């Protein structure tokens, strides 16, 4: 078996060497091929490159372009430093915490591991400020635990609240990231280290940690990037502590000063670019080390009694916190507090119906369309780029990662600038929301698609062509069924992201078309935590329902093929 796998690796390297010979097949003489490529690339230019360009043009427009810039620099210096400070600490804490927790989870039995993973994935389907909501409701000034149980009056509305909330929220994704990185390690390395006389602590120090360095860096920089762009948490829990992202939000919503916010966004873009660059470099390094392994065995992580005990305590605390958090979201929606007494109530449901629930249907529709259409587009594009295009891979890759590295506020503003006048007047319509969702999630989908497609042996397509299928048939009959599982995961990811993401969309909604996340954010800002709890509960349930639906699809498809 190992032999066969090795053989396949050898063959694939063989064929990647003769890549150039593949680029002289007749597709390149076919004008329809190029029209197809143009049709694929045109939306990228229109919905990614063009808005980004306009953002820069707008920032430096007019005679006093640089005056605005220096004015912004002066006025928002503190917010800028706050951004850097809180993002740094959130990224740092969430990365360190995530490593320990991930290491602890991998020591657990597999069925307990699965439960942990399920709890963690709930965090992925809730917006970042949800932690803040439940934190306030549990530990805030009138919190369920701090005030009603312990009679304390805590004040979380400051810098530490922001850092704490962001750290805890990012930790969940980072744990999944570390679990993936740890599982990708070759167990033989630990075997041979033990064989050479190394004990558990030495192995962690000499082998696990150094090999995880790229994962640490990647996790740090991606969290840094997310923290920079997060404006929900500082607005909800920051009190007087504001970051550049939250200032941008307030400026844009309150004053609609496009030039000033454009400049502020560009200011935010610098650290974002910087951390994205380091994130990508770290990922490349990690691929290089993992690519070297042949005949891997499942890693068996070294631990002794002390390590296990410390990690177990940490895990218990963390998961207790997480469970309380999600429990509180559900319970808070159905509880009422009267003079220290707690009642079960459906009143909040009534209040919820006073909000415009049509946003729920609209959001659901938008998310489903984004999920399927965005994923399909990503897969077709990735296929063309990975397999068919003789050039331009790097450029398309860069363009595709733009929406990811641009903070949400940036992307939203860019869309306003690009689509508020002819010839592409879209503001106020539902289309601008849809396009922003699709293209904002595109990087995620296209990464998954590229990974899935590049791991397929090329000869399978060749065999298909050989047996008389045309390229489109090869894609539909051979590749698509094989890629279906990764396609469905991509659909699910894009769906939940569209459902919960707030960054760009919140600037693009209009009186007529609102999204659920906005209703939620609005409810929290008005102080109706009960309603907010119900809405976030609905979001989690919607994600779950969609997940089950897709699992059903996968099951049916599996039985068919």
């Amino acid at each position, binding site marked *: *078996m*190992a*032999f066969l796998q*090795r053989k396949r690796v050898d063959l694939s390297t063989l064929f990647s060497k003769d890549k150039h010979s593949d680029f002289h097949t007749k597709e390149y003489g076919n004008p329809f091929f190029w029209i197809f490529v143009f049709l694929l690339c045109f939306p990228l230019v229109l919905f990614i490159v063009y808005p980004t360009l306009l953002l820069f043009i707008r920032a430096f427009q007019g005679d006093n372009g640089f005056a605005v810039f220096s004015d912004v620099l002066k006025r928002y210096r503190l917010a800028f430093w706050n951004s850097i400070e809180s993002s740094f600490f959130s990224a740092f804490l969430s990365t360190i915490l995530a490593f320990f927790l991930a290491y602890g989870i991998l020591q657990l039995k597999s069925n307990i591991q699965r439960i942990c993973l399920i709890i963690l994935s709930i965090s992925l389907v809730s917006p970042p400020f949800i932690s803040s909501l439940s934190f306030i409701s549990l530990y805030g000034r009138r919190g369920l635990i701090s005030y009603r149980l312990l009679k304390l009056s805590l004040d979380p509305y400051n810098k530490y609240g922001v850092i704490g909330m962001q750290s805890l929220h990012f930790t969940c994704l980072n744990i999944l990231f570390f679990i993936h990185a740890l599982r990708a390690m*070759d167990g*033989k*390395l630990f*075997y*041979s*280290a*033990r*064989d*050479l*006389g*190394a*004990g558990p602590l*030495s192995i962690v120090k*000499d*082998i696990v940690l*150094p*090999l995880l*360095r790229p994962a640490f860096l990647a996790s740090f920089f991606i969290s840094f990037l997310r923290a920079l762009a997060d404006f929900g948490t500082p607005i909800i829990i920051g009190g007087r502590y504001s970051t550049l992202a939250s200032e941008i939000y307030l400026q844009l919503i309150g004053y609609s000063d496009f030039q000033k916010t454009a400049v502020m966004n560009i200011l935010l873009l610098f650290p974002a670019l910087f951390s994205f660059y380091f994130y990508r470099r770290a990922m490349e390094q990690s691929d*290089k*080390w993992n690519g*070297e*392994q*042949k*005949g*891997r065995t499942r890693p068996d992580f070294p631990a002794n009694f002390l390590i296990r005990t410390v990690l177990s305590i940490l895990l218990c605390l963390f998961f207790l916190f997480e469970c309380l958090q999600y429990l509180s979201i559900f319970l808070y929606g159905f509880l009422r507090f009267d003079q220290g007494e707690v009642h079960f109530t459906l009143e909040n449901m009534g209040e919820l119906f006073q909000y415009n629930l049509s946003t729920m249907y609209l959001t659901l529709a938008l998310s489903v369309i984004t999920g399927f259409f965005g994923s399909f587009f990503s897969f077709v594009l990735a296929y063309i780029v990975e397999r068919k295009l003789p050039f331009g891979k790097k450029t398309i890759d860069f363009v595709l990662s733009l929406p990811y590295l641009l903070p949400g506020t940036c992307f939203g503003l860019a869309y306003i600038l690009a689509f508020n006048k002819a010839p592409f007047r879209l503001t106020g319509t539902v289309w601008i929301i849809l396009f922003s969702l699709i293209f904002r999630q595109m990087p995620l989908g296209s990464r998954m698609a590229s990974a899935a497609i590049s791991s397929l042996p090329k000869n399978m397509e060749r065999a298909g062509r050989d047996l008389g299928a045309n390229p489109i048939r090869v894609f539909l009959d051979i590749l698509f069924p094989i890629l279906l599982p990764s396609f469905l995961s991509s659909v699910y990811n894009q769906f939940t992201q569209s459902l919960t993401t707030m960054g760009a969309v919140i600037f693009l909604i209009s009186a007529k078309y609102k999204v659920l996340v906005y209703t939620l954010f609005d409810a929290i800002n008005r102080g109706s935590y009960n309603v907010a709890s119900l809405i976030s509960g609905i979001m989690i349930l919607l994600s779950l329902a969609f997940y089950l639906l897709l699992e059903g699809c996968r099951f049916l498809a599996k039985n068919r093929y």
Partner: protein
Amino acid sequence: MSRNEIPASQYTKAIGNIVANMDGISFRYGKKEPYVLENFSLSIEEGEIFCLLGESGCGKTTCLQILGGFIFPECGKVTIAGVDYSRIPPEKRPVATVFQSYALFPHFSVMENVVYGLKQKGMKKKTREDLGEKYLSLVGLSGYESRNVTELSGGQQQRVALARSLAIEPKLLLLDEPLSNLDAGLRQKIREELKILQKKLGISMLFVTHDQEEAMGLANRIGIMREGKILQIGSGEDLYRRPVSDYVRDFFGESNRISYQGKDYILRPEEIGMKNEKASVPSLSGELGKEENEVILEATVLTVQFLAILKQYYVEWEGQRIKVKISSRAPFEEGERVKLFFHRLEES
């Protein structure tokens, strides 16, 4: 290989002493799984190269992992150099494993890899790097100290893994399919080098493989395994000429069954000679016997294949098809009458 000498005193060279012993070992990968090894016993003598040979899934790698301490047996005893190591973790055992995929630490340089085990022993940096130098030159990799292991070729990685394991001066070196990741030419070369190195150091080695040529070429003794049991232990020649069962016989090549005068003879194609009026060509590897023991069969050539160093014939004798492999200088053509001759060595 360099000619740097290692004092022979480091490895006491007294063939015949048992260096490692597995006694009554049983192992399975779970309470409901079948036993991979059941009541398994094996002794490795000091200074020998022992090979466990078998198809994949026969339990040979499990056996290696039990000796290495990566898995603990359900019952039975593992002794190394006279000490009971049955329940001792790998880091405390005086054995070292060269893994099939080498398991080199990708973030370490060549030198850092080689001296890692010495570092665990608490050796000073200077001392361990001197030793590292010595073992690197022993495997012919002097000058590669600061290279990154991921930059090395497969053969070089193999040597680094070997040097790394040798550096801790184990009582027993375990090798898991040591040559299977190399291409054919290199495999032969490293096989020779391993043999020379083993002679020089006098170290005991246990390696597992599914390649019978590798086993014959490298090992002093071979144990052929099937379904968790050793069927036969012996030198390559023992197993080839005096197999105890059909399975062992077929592992080392093909055989013909010939019924002649009420007796069954099992003969390998290369143990049969051919002659007629044109020429007389002796068998390639049949044993010589007395004239009166010779059996002669009158047969007709059905097909001939020229295979460079030998010719492969199918001949027909009394309705039985017999395969014969013989020197490629044999002049017999299709349809010719020939006499097959061999000595009565084995009867069943």
